[in-house]
């Protein structure tokens, strides 16, 4: 915990009756009054303090003005979309041309994703949401992901580690299947005119092939027929 250092003894403090005037003379547009100027000429303590304060204010005012990241507008746009969080997730999904699915299963996907977001929390732009959908699919065989979406991207909820993580690592909590599901995209995302997903399941969980509801979820999101090919096959 930081302890504020005591004022070093060699740093003079201004006379208490002149302190307000000293400070009021600092900052943009301030003008030093004649009486203060006269006092500073005759009081070394006030002159020294005033000089230090003036220097400090110049350094503060000289800090660069930062450019607003473009993501602010994007995330704000989503945050301001009317309706509850599920409506907003649905709106974001609808806006993406890649995701086509029967309503019932889209609703299931929306529920799954919306549960990850707190009320009125920022939602990522469609491109990032696609990544989140893909990650959600990866989590079908594992626990449910807990990802907090901030205005500037994804944020891990893992406890502080001694070594920094090497990449995004998402912790999941709901078990759908015991083993990891390995999905390989067989098409490039942007190459096909319709830019649709296509996944080939190459490995099921240790307990057996993917369950029907899992295959249905994949089919709903991908718009393709999905089947479990079993371990090692492609």
């Amino acid at each position, binding site marked *: 915990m930081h302890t504020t250092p*005591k*004022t070093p003894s060699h740093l003079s403090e201004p006379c208490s009756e002149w302190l307000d005037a000293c400070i009021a003379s600092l900052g*943009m547009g301030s003008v030093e009054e004649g009486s203060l100027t006269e006092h500073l000429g005759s009081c070394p303590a006030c002159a020294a303090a005033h000089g*230090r304060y003036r220097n400090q204010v110049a*350094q503060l005012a000289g*800090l660069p003005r*930062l450019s607003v990241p473009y993501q602010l507008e994007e995330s704000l*746009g989503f945050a301001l979309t009317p309706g509850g969080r599920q409506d907003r997730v649905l709106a974001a999904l609808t806006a993406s041309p890649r995701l086509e699915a029967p309503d019932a299963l889209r609703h299931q996907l929306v529920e799954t994703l919306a549960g990850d977001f707190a009320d009125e929390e920022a939602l990522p732009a469609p491109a990032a949401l696609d990544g989140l959908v893909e990650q959600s699919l990866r989590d079908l065989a594992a626990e449910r992901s807990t990802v907090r979406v901030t205005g*500037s991207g994804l944020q891990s909820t893992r406890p502080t580690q001694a070594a920094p993580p090497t990449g995004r690592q998402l912790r999941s909590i709901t078990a759908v299947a015991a083993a990891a599901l390995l999905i390989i995209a067989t098409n490039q995302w942007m190459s096909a005119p319709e830019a649709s997903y296509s996944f080939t399941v190459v490995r099921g969980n240790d307990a057996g092939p993917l369950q029907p509801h899992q295959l249905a979820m994949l089919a709903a999101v991908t718009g393709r027929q999905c089947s479990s090919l079993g371990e090692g096959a492609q």
Partner: protein
Amino acid sequence: MSQPLTDDPDLALVRACQAQESVCLEGAFRELYEAYKDRVYNTCYRITGSATDAMDAAQETFATAFRRIDGFRFESRFSSWIYRVAVNASIDLRRRSASRPWVSLDRLRSPLNEGTPMDPEDERVESPGGAASRRELEGDIQEAITRLSPKMKAITVLRYMEGLSYEEISESLEISLGTVKSRLSRAHGALDRELTPVLDRHLLN
């Protein structure tokens, strides 16, 4: 304050927002956003000390403004009000960040590195060593600001980085002019203790 202010420079724009059915960042609200986004973001950044938290705080500020603008009655200037929302959002976020057991991946980077990328133009007038040294100084100053208490941070940022007058600070923070003066006095004491070693280290005193 019972009488609404009529000399608020944002009067027309706020009234336009109130009259319009905005569903998103469009129309009059978009204009308001464009007018204030830099000020809000910079205020949030300097108080939170983190680009990630600044984004969240700025988003919360504008979302609050959007939700509450219909009820804004010009009992203070709009600019004072939005600064107040930004300061409160930043302080709250900073408090929540400090108590989180986990760390944002963005926090692993230095706050200053998240800011404006280095402009190649700088390299032509300043040596690489000079630019690096200046960035280090800026980082140290930001660290010193971050160590101030929330009240000291707020008043320092509003006065010396956003250029607000005493009256504007009084309106934004909802404190009397006397409290503005006394708080600024205390802030200078704290800044003296925090910044003097920093500036000494950089041979700027």
